[in-house]
């Protein structure tokens, strides 16, 4: 062992809400996914330094020539936190548990969308196992797909596809999940929690990839950003996000300069225009709306000027991001001309839906103001987030401001869900050529082959103006002097705290 046994101590962190679950099958949110990555492992994980997926519980992965059969050779020395060894059976069990209608997981799509052979029959209850997931021997799992699916390994790195112990999960009573006794193979063991107060993890001494440097993590639930910031300054936290109101001061304060971290998130914020609502079905009207909005002013105002102006669906940081896309300029005069051309010289009335978040309200009010400058009289309808989503998905919101954060690091995740799958439902958008391009791209194993198709689809989408792109967010945090190895990774479940060191 290289470790010299330095007492590393506990990493002190904050979360603003409690974790709804500690069970991978239910970890739908960013916070829960992040926690699952600490306690459990997937067959694959994200590389700590890039957005590539690399083998994790799988020591290596063999793929056949047409990329439909994946053979995973598992590490042989992996044990669950209770000492039970991990075998291929646990892998098959975990995937079937996720898909099983009796589990009622909200995340079945993580495996369903990959086209594993026999999933449909299993989900319908026709058979009692997924024949496309084979246990070859104790340490080998073979998964067969109906057709090549480029993002398959990305899906296996998602929290829902993390591996749970069969001997525990199969004994759960009805309505129970693993949150009460979260046993995984991950670098940290669950050591207790008081809901809405704190949660403790301790280092897994027997972790197959080596023990983490730190001895554990103490998470505290601190609801208010400002309080968390003060806790950090009082020395009670090792890292903290910066409250929006203080962001510029902190970024410009030399005292924080060498402890400041920033992450370009894989996310896009957009103002969607529902084409089922007159006159938003006219592309000239949608373009006019885009031209009427001074998007840079929105970034400089509510977003402190620290975010990147968005011009297209794919955010920087993903292959397919295209800097050469011509931004729609801020041009109120041109917007008025376009509106007149479309038959609305005196503008029209429209309704904007927004959540009640402070910043979102500020943004939609700015949009309302810019629209009024070209004669469009907008009213704002503020609702709870869940209500907005529900109505947007049902196609009932004429225009709304929302965001999309990556599930996994591939541009497909920014194009297919928003402009093919639910795009049609949310804003009545459809472009057969876009759907075709993505259908073709998803079967291509090599990223470099997919990128030109993504970029073509992206150009078509930008031409159609289904939404007005506003921002690619950048998030900021500061760490305590001497704390290193916290990743600035754009994927929420990438950091397993294996590199973290305390002073």
């Amino acid at each position, binding site marked *: 062992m290289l470790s010299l046994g330095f007492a590393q101590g506990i990493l002190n962190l904050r979360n603003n809400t*409690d974790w*709804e679950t500690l069970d991978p099958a239910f970890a739908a949110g960013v916070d829960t996914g992040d926690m699952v990555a600490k306690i459990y492992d997937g067959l694959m994980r994200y590389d700590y330094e890039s957005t590539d997926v690399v083998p994790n519980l799988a020591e290596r992965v063999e793929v056949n020539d047409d990329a439909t059969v994946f053979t995973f050779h598992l590490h042989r020395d992996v044990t669950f936190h209770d000492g039970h060894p991990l075998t291929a059976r646990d892998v098959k069990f975990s995937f079937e548990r996720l898909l099983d209608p009796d589990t009622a997981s*909200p995340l079945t799509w993580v495996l369903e969308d990959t086209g594993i052979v026999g999933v449909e029959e299993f989900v319908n209850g026709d058979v009692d196992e997924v024949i496309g997931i084979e246990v070859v021997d104790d340490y080998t799992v073979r998964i067969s797909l109906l057709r090549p699916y480029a993002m398959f390994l990305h899906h296996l790195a998602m929290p829902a596809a993390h591996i749970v112990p069969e001997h525990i999960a199969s004994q759960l009573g009805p309505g129970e999940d693993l949150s009460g006794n979260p046993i995984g193979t991950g670098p940290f063991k669950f050591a207790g929690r*008081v809901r809405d107060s704190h949660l403790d993890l301790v280092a897994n001494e027997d972790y197959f990839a080596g023990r983490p440097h730190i001895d554990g993590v103490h998470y505290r639930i601190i609801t208010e950003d400002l309080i968390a910031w003060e806790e950090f300054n009082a020395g009670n936290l090792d890292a903290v996000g910066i409250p929006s109101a203080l962001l510029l001061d902190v970024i410009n304060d030399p005292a924080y300069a060498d402890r400041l971290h920033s992450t370009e998130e894989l996310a896009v914020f957009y103002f969607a225009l529902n084409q089922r609502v007159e006159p938003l079905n006219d592309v000239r009207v949608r373009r006019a709306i885009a031209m009427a909005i001074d998007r840079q002013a929105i970034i400089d105002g509510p977003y402190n000027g620290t975010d990147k102006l968005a011009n297209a669906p794919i955010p920087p940081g993903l292959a397919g991001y295209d800097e050469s896309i011509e931004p729609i300029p801020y041009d109120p005069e041109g917007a008025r001309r376009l509106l007149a051309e479309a038959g609305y010289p005196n503008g029209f009335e429209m309704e904007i839906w927004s959540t009640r978040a402070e910043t979102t309200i500020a943004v939609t009010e700015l949009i309302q103001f810019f629209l009024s400058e070209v004669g469009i009289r907008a009213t704002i309808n503020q609702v709870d987030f*869940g209500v907005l*989503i529900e109505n947007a998905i049902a196609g009932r919101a004429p225009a709304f401001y929302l965001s999309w954060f990556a599930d996994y690091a591939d541009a497909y995740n920014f194009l297919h869900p928003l402009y093919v799958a639910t795009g049609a439902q949310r804003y009545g958008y459809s472009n057969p050529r876009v759907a075709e391009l993505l259908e073709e791209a998803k079967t291509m194993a090599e990223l470099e082959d997919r990128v030109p198709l993504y970029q073509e689809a992206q150009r078509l989408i930008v031409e159609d103006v289904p939404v007005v792109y506003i921002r690619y967010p950048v998030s900021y945090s500061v760490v305590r002097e001497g704390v290193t190895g916290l990743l600035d990774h754009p994927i929420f479940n990438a950091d397993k705290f294996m590199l973290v060191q305390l002073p």
Partner: protein
Amino acid sequence: MAVYVVKRLLQAIPVVLGVSIITFVLMILVPGDPAQKLLGQRASPEAVQELRTRLGLNDPPVQQYLRIMRNVVTGDLGRSIVTRERVLTEIRNRFPVTLKLAVLAMAFSTVVGVGVGVLCALNQNRFIDRFLMFVTLTGISVPVFWYALIAILLVVFQLRWVPQTGIGDGSLRYFLLPAFVLGTRASAFIARITRSNMLEVIRQDYIRTAHAKGLPERTVTVKHALRNILIPVVTVIGLDLASFIDGAFLTEYVFNIPGMGRYGLGALLDRDLPVMIPLVIYTATLYILANLLVDLLYGVIDPRIRYD
């Protein structure tokens, strides 16, 4: 007396039922779908419908309500649809925390409220009276959220009397500041009620008689005056106690205290009916019991009151 108590408890049943039904109907009518919230924006409408069916949210409302109430009546209380945690386990963990906070807040507000009220009444219209009445008015008017934040910034992060927010290791010192903040408003109310009742009482003939007998000022105030204002004061304190145990939503939220208030707030935002209904019943029961307790105390305070 026993008959009276039993009668009152029986009367409580329709009240509790009514409150639970009203809450249930309101929650059904208010927009927002727990299934949608669980699934997030990734979900297709079909997936939402499927989950709604699995959670029983597509069942007729009457059936949903009866299912929840069956859990309540059998004492099982069921599970949250968001965390799948047993409601009973959560209440067991959280009730002691809230109770501790409530008892401290009540002790503080009673001592300070009655003390200030008496002091002001005895010094009516002098500087001390006007000053303290101004302070209590501020205490009633100040927004709790803002006040709690300022109190934390000052006491925790400037003066550093406690090392952090939250309940830390659960020891008493972490509860003092939140109890102070929680009790402030109540103490201001109690002070104002004590003062006005006290002013009335100290003009009564029997107080003049007591003074004329040559009793010490202290005896007159405590034994003759104070005892006669206890009925309105105890009424206010009783209701305050109920509202404290109900869980101070904002105080618990800002101070990061894992009590009943936080639980209720979370369930409300998540439209988590299997949690909401038991909590509403709990709240209604608390108020009923507090009222009953106050009514019983009347008899102790004033022996002329009889319960038949």
